[in-house]
């Protein structure tokens, strides 16, 4: 046991004290901010001011409504507009204050046809577009109301935001015009078309519970978190296992202790490094979040904190550890077979993708969280971290299932470490040779 702790201590201290660790730990949160928030802003930025649009309205009926729709700057979701009377003043305020990134602004002008043929008008407009006086133009044919087809010409038809917005606003304008032609009062129709709001209440063993609706997002980010951690630290585990092989320290180690506690010690030591870093990052993130929430609250914006029960947090941590360890151990196992980290990384990749495969089961499980498929998927250790978390957040399965899944998972880790230790021990005796799978199998039996 003493030796086991000596290995953990060495693995941990040697790594935590490196400059690399200190720097990445400090820079990490900054990088999150940089890569998480900045691209979001950049993607939503609409550089170059409003989009200048000309409209040829051959029907002569749609332009006014189209223009109105295009110039509307408030949220385009009709339901929200209609819900105005229900919304409290705070929410309305919040809506108006929403940043306008990503929403396309338009400057609209009507091109008077004055009896000239369409071709001539288009030529003129094309010229203006070329001279950069316009960004594009829309041709609304005379039979738009019945045919429902219009054309958009623009410099940049790849700009899906603008195209989408134009199509969307034009649809609205045409729809309203059609209704008006049929003498249907818009107010009546809007009232009739109002959406039903469906509030969901989850019935669990503990009685009724309001669902925050964040379940899916929660599970997705959970999966991403495991995936990213494995990607970040798997290589570290791989390198740790290879270290003694490359420097041939293994021989001394094996003459001092058994290979299983050695491998277990390495895995735990390196994983503690990973968890230390993740904890620091997590706390930094919470601090940022708390700060952000505080700022928002100070401005009078009501913040709906997602409701997460403490039990879910415990499950989250347990399944995160399980997921992390299962995949980190795979890196260790591969490390015991190969001679260089590059080789190991390539070999590990397809297996780590199994984690992603857990997402394939997402929707079947959400639809019927207690089906046999859901059950077995959440018992299979390589999928369980994701699938069981989905089940827990949708319809919490009986406790025995959760613990069985955890037990299987951690037993798998121990089994994999055992296998790793065997392969490593024999592999160490074969110098600088990459092992084939049959060879590895022989080693396992031989050791």
């Amino acid at each position, binding site marked *: 046991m003493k*030796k086991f702790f000596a290995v953990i201590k060495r693995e941990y201290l040697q790594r935590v004290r490196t400059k690399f660790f200190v720097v990445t730990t400090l820079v990490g949160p900054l990088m999150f901010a940089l890569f998480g928030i900045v691209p979001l802003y950049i993607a939503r930025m609409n550089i170059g001011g409003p989009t200048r649009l000309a409209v040829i309205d051959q029907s002569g009926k749609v332009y006014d409504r189209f223009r109105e729709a295009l110039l509307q700057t408030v949220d385009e979701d009709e339901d929200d507009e209609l819900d105005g009377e229900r919304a409290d003043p705070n929410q309305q305020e919040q809506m108006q204050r929403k940043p306008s990134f990503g929403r396309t602004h338009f400057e609209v002008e009507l091109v008077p046809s004055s009896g000239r043929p369409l071709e001539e008008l288009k030529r003129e407009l094309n010229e203006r577009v070329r001279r950069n006086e316009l960004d594009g133009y829309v041709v609304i044919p005379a039979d738009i109301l019945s045919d429902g087809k219009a054309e958009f010409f623009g410099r940049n038809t790849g700009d899906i935001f603008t195209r989408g917005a134009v199509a969307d606003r034009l649809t609205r304008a045409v729809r309203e015009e059609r209704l008006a032609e049929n003498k249907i009062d818009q107010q009546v129709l809007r009232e009739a078309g109002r959406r039903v709001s469906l509030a969901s209440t989850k019935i669990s063993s503990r009685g009724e519970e309001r669902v925050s609706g964040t379940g899916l997002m929660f599970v997705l980010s959970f999966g991403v978190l495991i995936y990213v951690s494995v990607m970040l630290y798997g290589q570290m585990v791989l390198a740790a296992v290879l270290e003694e092989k490359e420097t041939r320290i293994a021989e001394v180690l094996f003459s001092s202790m058994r290979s299983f506690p050695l491998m277990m010690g390495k895995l735990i030591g390196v994983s503690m490094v990973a968890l230390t870093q993740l904890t620091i990052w997590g706390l930094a993130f919470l601090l940022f979040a708390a700060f952000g929430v505080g700022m928002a609250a100070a401005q009078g914006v009501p913040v709906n904190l997602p409701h997460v029960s403490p039990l879910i947090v415990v499950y989250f941590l347990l399944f995160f550890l399980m997921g992390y360890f299962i995949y980190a151990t795979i890196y260790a196992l591969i490390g015991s077979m190969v001679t260089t980290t590059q080789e190991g990384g390539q070999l590990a990749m397809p297996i780590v993708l199994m984690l992603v495969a857990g997402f394939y089961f997402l929707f079947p499980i959400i639809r019927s969280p207690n089906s046999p498929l859901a059950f077995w998927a959440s018992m299979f250790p390589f999928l369980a971290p994701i699938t069981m978390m989905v089940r827990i957040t949708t319809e919490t399965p009986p406790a025995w299932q959760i613990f069985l899944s955890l037990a299987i998972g951690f037993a798998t880790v121990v089994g994999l470490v055992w296998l790793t230790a065997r392969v490593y021990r024999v592999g160490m005796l074969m110098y600088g040779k990459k092992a084939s799978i049959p060879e590895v199998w022989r080693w396992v039996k031989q050791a």
Partner: protein
Amino acid sequence: MTDETKPTLVLDHVTKRYGDFTAVDDLSLQVRPGRVFGLIGPNGAGKTTTIRMIVNITVPDSGRIELFGQAMETRLQDRIGYLPEERGLYRKMKVGEQLKFFAELKDVSGKEADERINRWLNKMELSDWKTKRTKDLSKGMQQKVQFITAVIHNPDLLILDEPFSGLDPVNVELMKETILENKREGKTIILSTHQMEIAEKLCDDVCMINHAKKVLDGRLREIRRSFSRNAVALQIAGGDGLLHDKSLVVNVRQNGDDTEVLLAPGVDAQILLKRLVEAGAVVNKFELAEPSLHDIFIEKVREAS
């Protein structure tokens, strides 16, 4: 040396195979306490595999290994100090921390470990390097650090695989002295080396293996005597003609200043001396030559192939 003394280590008909390849074939040997035991043999003879079985890195396919009177097991590893042929130290670790880690692996920790580390670093003239990273040390220094890891826990059995490679003459002497010191303290030492001159000086007993099999085993002195081939080392002036008399001398070889002659079967050295004097040669040196371990080694390896 009495037979009543319990051997430190016993290998009893030990065999180890890797697939079709037999690395060690039916090897039996005994290492007696307080002696330096030389394990010699050409490359690939099975020395390293034998050592690995002794330190419990691998397990024999058949046969029995007994250490300190007990069947081999993990717990006994703490009583062995092992300097493997291929050295390995953590390159980025500081020398002091490195030694502390290896001491802990051998169940020596805390103050006890610190004291021993300081004592050994001092002895190996490495005290100034304690806080330096291992990769900044010269090869010879790393070698000495590795040696300390093998002795830090004061083992009863010390196994040294090529301990002199990479050392300069001064450090070779230091290493020899340290090995003999351990012997004086009653430690048992197994020495595996290619350097026959050193083995000759240090070893009490020798076991030679070739092609996985033991070819020679016993006290070094007795082995040498048994290999005595009726040879004489000479330094003479004149009388050269006699050396070409095939009824007298079978083979003549120049070895430095010495002329080594192998006498014909049945010819006594005294007869050669007498004939030389009669022939008017000036005899500066006339010595009955025992074969060196080197010669025995070569002869045995040739014999096998």
